[in-house]
């Protein structure tokens, strides 16, 4: 395959969400939050996690799925640091997205040498690369933040807002409510506030229709 032929199969966003829901139900049946993706990867899927030094600092990469699909390589320093727990969780879920959504691409790609691999990666069209990443991000967000639970948490956050006498904001400045909701609920899912804001926006959960 030539890099110019390397294209991301377009699919409906709802298909990606449905796949994330199915995989979560299968791999994390207790539904306990936050989801321990590391446990799913190692103990359920039996994929390896190899910790290497210098990945982030020297190459600006903090995790990736190995091309032989046997596991993930992660940056030792950031992945050992609990400060990065939320990013770590999202990174794992993102890589799982590639694992489930783009497995056929990985299986098709065969490189003879690191040099051949490098030139191929350099020549992947940006628009295709972005499409692959977008799909993996959508998978990760939905996998870590189940929609029905997010809806309940949004209701709770709105109740708090009303309880604090801020009902006016809900009517006059609905667009500033999402960051408030995100700050209120993100810890439950073990993700960043940005991830929650994106889920709210992507799934059209606020403002209410």
């Amino acid at each position, binding site marked *: 395959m030539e890099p110019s032929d390397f294209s991301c199969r377009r699919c409906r966003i709802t298909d990606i969400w449905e796949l994330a829901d199915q995989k979560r139900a299968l791999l994390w049946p207790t539904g306990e939050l936050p989801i*321990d993706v*590391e*446990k799913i990867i*190692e*103990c359920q899927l*039996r994929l*390896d*996690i*190899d*910790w*290497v*030094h*210098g*990945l*982030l600092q*020297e*190459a*600006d*990469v*903090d*995790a*990736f*799925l*190995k*091309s*032989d699909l*046997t596991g993930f*390589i992660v940056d*030792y320093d950031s992945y*050992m640091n609990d400060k990065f727990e939320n990013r770590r969780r999202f*990174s794992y879920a*993102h*890589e799982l997205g*590639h694992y489930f959504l*783009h497995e056929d*691409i*990985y299986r098709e*790609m065969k*490189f*003879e*040498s*690191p040099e051949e*691999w*490098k030139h191929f*990666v*350099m020549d*992947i069209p*940006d628009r295709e*690369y972005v499409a*692959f*990443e977008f799909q*993996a991000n959508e998978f990760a967000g939905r996998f870590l933040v189940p929609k029905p639970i997010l809806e309940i948490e949004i209701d709770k956050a709105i109740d708090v807002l009303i309880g604090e006498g801020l009902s006016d904001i809900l009517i006059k400045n609905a667009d500033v409510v999402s960051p408030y909701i995100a700050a209120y609920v993100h810890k439950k899912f073990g993700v960043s506030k940005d991830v929650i804001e994106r889920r709210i926006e992507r799934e059209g959960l606020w403002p209410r229709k």
Partner: protein
Amino acid sequence: MFGAYVKEKRLGRGITLREFSKIINYDPSNWSKIERGTLSPPQDDEKLTRIAEALNIEYRSHEWQQFIDEAKISAGMIPDDIVSDEQVVKSLPLFFRTVRSDKPTEEELDTLIKILKRER
């Protein structure tokens, strides 16, 4: 092989590498190398006993003796340090989780190859 054996026991107990490394007080990067067979397992009895306990292997049992024997045998079977291009290629990614959400530069790709040769 000692590495494959302990990894199977660990995963059978539902313990991640991070959790296990904490329990046995071992660097996870080194422990993952031991499980992959690229680093020699510890040889002193105190450390081996701690690992055996974490894996729920009964002290002085037949399995315990087998565990100790595997550790001693594996110590002499570590492959040389030279990592082949074929091994590196198997580990290289198609997509990268980067801080700036962009493809790495050519220089960063070269560095990534170097790191994998060094760390595998």
